[in-house]
């Protein structure tokens, strides 16, 4: 292709880019949606790119040149001069000054680290306490996210329901999943956890003991709770022991009871550490 022909192609690219830019403005004004505006502006940029790349590759003078590299390091004389200049800072008792200055620096650095403690928001409880307790208390009723109180009859066999302590619908670590199974299944010799159940309703912490994701899926056929993050699987009929996946501990069970008005209530705190394992006494 002759230079003239290439020039025409490059000019064609730039003209088409200008047309796309105009099209973009029109598309924007008439609100034609992301596909049209994004596509046209992208096409304009692509055409400019194409024009520039053609221009660079076919029209501009190129060629191979040789340049000597600069020497890797400055000359020794330069280095000596700098060392000497730095030496001008020396005074008779440099050792004493250096050590005390170092001490001051280290103390200052250590001192300014301390206010990092303020990153813990005002009013927050101590981490160890916050992690070891939730908002469940003996006799506290359960509410759904929408605020409805829960009775045992609200769940059919095979149903699940996410509940929170009454008045604490935002308490992430108190999120609890209710699962209703056939009470006869809980009388099997292999089944455990029947102690905290009411009419076949079992309650477990909803936070996966692996990475803290909410255990969002219930497979009714196998009575298993499944975490969508890393596929940990917990057996509801066996105290929510992990049966597959990376979780190393069972989902803590929340013992249930029924209050005098017939509402489901917690019969104490979770039995076990809620959420992912952290460094604490085993």
């Amino acid at each position, binding site marked *: 292709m002759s230079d003239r022909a290439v020039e025409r192609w490059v000019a064609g690219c730039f003209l088409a880019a200008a047309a796309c830019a105009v099209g973009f403005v029109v598309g924007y004004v008439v609100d034609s949606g992301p596909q049209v505006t994004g596509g046209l502006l992208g096409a304009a940029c692509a055409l400019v790119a194409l024009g520039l790349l053609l221009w660079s590759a076919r029209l501009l003078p190129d060629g191979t040149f040789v340049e000597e590299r600069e020497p890797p390091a400055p000359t020794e004389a330069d280095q000596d001069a700098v060392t000497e200049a730095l030496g001008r800072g020396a005074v008779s008792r440099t050792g004493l000054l250096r050590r005390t200055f170092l001490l001051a620096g280290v103390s200052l650095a250590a001192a300014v680290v301390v206010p990092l403690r303020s990153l813990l928001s005002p009013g927050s409880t101590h981490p160890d306490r916050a992690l070891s307790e939730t908002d469940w208390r003996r006799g506290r009723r359960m509410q759904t996210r929408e605020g409805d109180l829960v009775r045992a009859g609200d769940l059919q066999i095979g149903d699940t329901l996410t509940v929170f302590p009454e008045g604490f619908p935002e308490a992430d670590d108190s999120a609890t999943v209710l699962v209703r199974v056939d009470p006869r299944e809980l009388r099997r010799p292999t089944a455990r956890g029947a102690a905290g159940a009411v009419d076949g309703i079992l309650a477990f912490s909803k936070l996966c003991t692996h990475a803290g994701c*909410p255990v969002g899926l219930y497979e009714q056929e196998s009575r298993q709770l499944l975490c969508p993050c890393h596929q940990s699987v917990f057996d509801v009929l066996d105290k929510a022991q992990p049966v597959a996946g990376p979780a190393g501990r069972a989902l803590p069970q929340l013992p249930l009871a029924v209050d005098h008005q017939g509402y489901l209530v917690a019969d104490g705190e979770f039995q076990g550490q809620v959420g992912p394992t952290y460094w604490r006494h085993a």
Partner: protein
Amino acid sequence: MITRWVVRRLDDRLGVSPALRTGMNRVFPDHWSFLLGEVATYAFVYLLLSGTFLTFFFDPSTVKTVYEGGYRPLHGAEVSAAYASTVQLSWDVRFGLVVRQSHHWAALLFAGAVVVHLARVFFTGAFRRPRGVNWAVGVTLLLFTVVAGFTGYSLPDDLLSAMGLHVANSVLLSIPVIGTWLAFLVFGGEFPGAAISQRMYIAHVLLVPGLMAALIVLHGWLVVRRRHGQFPGLGRTETNVVGPRLWPARAVRSLGILFAVIALCLLLGGLVQINPVWLWGPYEPGAALGPAQPDWYLGWVDGALRLYPGWEPILFGYRLPNMFVPSVLLPGGTFLALYLWPVLERLWTHDRRPHHLLDRPRDHPVRTGIGVMALTFYALLLTSWSLDVISRYTGIPVFTLVGVFRVGVLTVPLLTGAIALVLARGLRDSGADRLSEMSWSGLRAGWRRRREEDTEVPTEPAPVADLEQPPAMPEDLEPVRVEPGPVP
């Protein structure tokens, strides 16, 4: 002449002519793989531009508001201001969705370009002296890339990113001794934490990009200062630089690449949906959705979390959290190995000389083998990131896949690494230019060398490039020397 006039005015005020002349005449070695860093830089430029646009519409507050916008199904829902403003800027701000999506695509592209660029520098030995400092700067940039990406996609306060934050919180909690305090200081309290949204916002729009911009400038300045390395070839020696000059062809091409990168981001942003947060829904305590994957540059950690078995041994009376190994030790070890690699290689080869001539991957078979092994390992971890999705499409039970990958991630890298080592040795010793030209005897020679060396102390010959006599300068190579001098 208008150019002459502009130059004179500029010189009167700034005196730029000598520097400009040196710059324009500067010779750069040329190879397609040297453009990867350029692509990354331009993706970063686009991230800054599109991100600035997004800050005008996004509100990081977690205060509850009632959504009333263009997305009908969410009408009347009580959501955080962060989530509402993200949906708003996607549905009601004209062109906002394109910018938001192209910003996300640009982040994926940027991380990809950074990783491929890192692989290029690794396999060609461009991290050796005098470029060790720049290698460390580059690894730090990769680290910040991951932080910038995570804090970015976690901002909208949607259900998917809330699950990511749950995991991040658990990662911090799993660190022995200091983990609980670290998690509480970062989040400002127990999950979800009152302060995390504001903190991620300021980290994402100011701290991390500010540091990255400074490091990118330093990275580029060191390349200019130390000059780019070049592949060995006709007339190329350790003491010269051979290639085209910056002005005009290379500069115009570079401008073309800038526009190409922006075009790619805009086309993807306009045509290919990414992270539709209105479909995920807002964060709600106790809610989850699946399948859930982080962005790809964190996928390898997520994959490791899926593969690592549920071990929680008791150490000194304390329970070691399961997540500590795959999500703290593995990434920590990965970055430590990256930072230390130039030192480790120097200790292994005893080669302390500066190198301006790059290796071809075959020139250093052990390095190439280790590199291929590492790439295979991380690629398999990244694949494990989507085992639930693979299971859904293939019908293979997910725990069968987990079992296969648990074995594969530990064995396949050894195999591919060994194959790469043998191939590299065969190529180096047979002198074949490319794989298709290598004969079976060349390949067998590579294999035998390996067997012999297994019984001896393995020694790697020093790279031969600078020992060779450079060929005589061909006549069409015009030496150019640029002397800065007084401007006429």
